[in-house]
């Protein structure tokens, strides 16, 4: 039963100088899965990874790799099974990107590390896979941080590992390369059965790519499971102890702190038309109310995070007279209205009524 896991920790306790930082870590994954560590800065994600790659000695417990205890593997055995991409900056002198990638072949070359035809082919393929073939001759020290990161990934891939360990691999990458980088990893895991353990800062991406997530909080792994199990409402705010702003687990929607106070503007919105207006009001520091939104509306997450008062209706239900009444009352209190719909646009019954009410009362469309 236990051996169905490719990677597993048992009561792993990690820390520095004999002082435990995180205790009793029990995480596991099958071959070809992606496991991601998330948690606040300084929670100890890197420390855990360092124990997994044998950079640090565990204070207690064991890491199992393919059913074998990690300390039982020789340095060479481990190097043919596991490769790493670390946050540590490498500053090799006078090495082309190709040279850096080729260092991944180290466990397979002979006494003097001379590359064979086969090695050269694998180096070339790894570079193609990560789309850095054009950097081949470029001096490694003259490349950008994002390029360096991709070179290090190609290096790790040409080590032909069964398991890849990455410490915050996307930190220096812009959005395009973040997605590209994670896509490559996903493809490798899906097609070649590569197992991946990494730490990520991007929660939304972590939720999309990972088969398993481990949340590090305080001195323990607070939660371990599938993204669906982890991203329950309010958990992220709790995990990161967020006191300002908000994070919506379902949509990955991230908002700044709402403006507190008596609402000054009523926004009639829906179908995603309101989100930009809400954010613009938040930027200008104007408290607002909004409605009437169905809870499955595109505007709902942002409205929920930013509006001082929100009138909403459960999905697939008609607007009741009670909700309409509350909306009108709220509009009267605000005195200003922003209607995000064009004149004469088709609207559901309740909303139509609300727009007409605003026109009748002569509230200016600010």
């Amino acid at each position, binding site marked *: 039963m236990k051996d169905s896991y490719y990677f597993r920790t048992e009561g792993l306790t990690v820390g520095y100088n004999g002082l435990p930082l995180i205790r009793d870590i029990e995480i596991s994954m099958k071959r070809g899965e992606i496991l991601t560590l998330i948690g606040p800065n300084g929670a100890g994600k890197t420390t855990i990874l360092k124990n997994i*790659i044998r950079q640090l000695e565990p204070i207690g417990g064991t890491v199992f790799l393919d059913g074998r205890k990690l300390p039982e593997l020789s340095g060479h055995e481990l*190097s043919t099974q596991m490769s*790493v991409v670390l946050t540590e900056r490498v500053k090799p002198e006078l*090495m082309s990107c190709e040279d850096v990638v080729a260092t991944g072949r180290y466990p397979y070359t002979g006494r*003097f590390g*001379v590359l064979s035809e086969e090695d050269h082919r694998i180096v070339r393929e790894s570079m193609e896979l990560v789309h850095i073939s054009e950097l081949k001759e470029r001096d490694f020290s003259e490349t950008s941080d994002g390029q360096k990161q991709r070179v290090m990934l190609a290096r790790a891939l040409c080590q032909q590992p069964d398991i890849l360990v990455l410490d915050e691999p996307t930190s220096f990458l812009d959005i395009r390369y973040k997605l590209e980088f994670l896509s490559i990893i996903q493809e490798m895991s899906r097609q070649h059965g590569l197992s991946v353990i990494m730490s990520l800062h991007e929660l939304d991406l972590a939720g999309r790519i990972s088969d398993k997530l481990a949340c590090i909080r305080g001195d323990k792994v607070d939660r371990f499971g599938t993204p669906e199990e982890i991203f329950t409402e309010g958990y992220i705010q709790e995990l990161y102890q967020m006191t300002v702003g908000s994070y919506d687990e379902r949509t990955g929607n991230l908002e700044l702190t709402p403006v507190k106070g008596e609402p000054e503007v009523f926004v009639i919105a829906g179908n995603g038309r309101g989100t930009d207006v809400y954010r613009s009001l938040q930027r200008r520091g104007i408290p607002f109310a909004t409605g009437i939104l169905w809870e499955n509306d595109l505007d709902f997450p942002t409205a929920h995070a930013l509006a001082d008062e929100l009138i909403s209706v459960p999905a697939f239900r008609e607007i009741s007279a009670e909700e309409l009444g509350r909306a009108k009352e709220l509009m009267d209190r605000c005195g200003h209205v922003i209607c995000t719909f064009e004149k004469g646009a088709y609207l559901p019954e309740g909303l139509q009524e609300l727009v007409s009410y605003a026109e009748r009362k002569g509230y200016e469309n600010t």
Partner: protein
Amino acid sequence: MKNRRYCLAFLILAALLLMLLAVNVCIGSVGIPFAEVLRILTGHGSDATYKDIVMQIRLPRALAAAILGGALALSGYLLQTFFHNPIAGPYILGISSGAKLVVALVMVFALGQAAVVSSGMMIIAAFIGSMISMGFVILMSRYMDQMSRLIVSGVMIGYICSAITEFVVTFAEDADIVNLHSWSQGSFSGISWNNVAVMAVVTFLAFAAVFLMSKPIMAYQMGESYARNMGLNIPLFRVLLVLLSSILSACVTAFAGPVSFVGIAVPHLVKSLFKSSKPLLLIPACFLGGASFCLFCDLLARTLFAPTELSISTVTAVFGAPVVIYIMIRRRKERA
């Protein structure tokens, strides 16, 4: 295309070495016709004085300069690898001075006992001194995160060792102290064939060991974490690096005293020549380059103000120190 550059670079280094060896044998304070030198070298020399000068003085001295120069450059290269610091070297880190101190102590003690110190004993004494200094430097490197601070602390160790050496030499009572004094300033003079044989054996053994380590050195250049992931046994590797670089610099100090800057300047120049940092190329190239560099500097030391001889460190510093300054300025720019 790259391979052609490497071949060419090796050819240049080899040609330079041979040429400098020849020039060193031919030129000296006593003018010996070139044809006569050739005859002596082929065993047909007629003039006994000339023969003595060439065979007993110039040739062993030139060979010693070449072998020890190579050893110094290699020692510097290993230290730079160890500390991940391009301006580390046996002289600047005080390792040569530590070796000098212990050798001076042993020599003064032996002179007092009227005993003769063998070449082997000298190397062992120098090795012990090197290891002591090295121990201090490694200890301090744990607290010095910046490369310049480590260098400054190394220089300080050097000063302390030199001060004690001067003290010991000054108060030792013997006529031979004159020799000791010139040795403690660094010089390739007074090398016997016996010395050459010993240094050749020690240096070439160490060279072979270093060459066999070229693959782990490459891994180590990627930083310790990655090297460990490649399966390198880091503690063992570090011990070997320290031992080998100490043996090499001890060998130099035992025979020629402390020689400055060769260990830093040569690896840097060689890297620029090859435009590569592959240890497999740089290890032999550093050796060749160091040999040529020391031959050239010794030639100047002997001939510039003949018959007065300059200390070898005076000359190597003139050429080596600017290289160090250049490296530091360039590093600064890279960081900014």
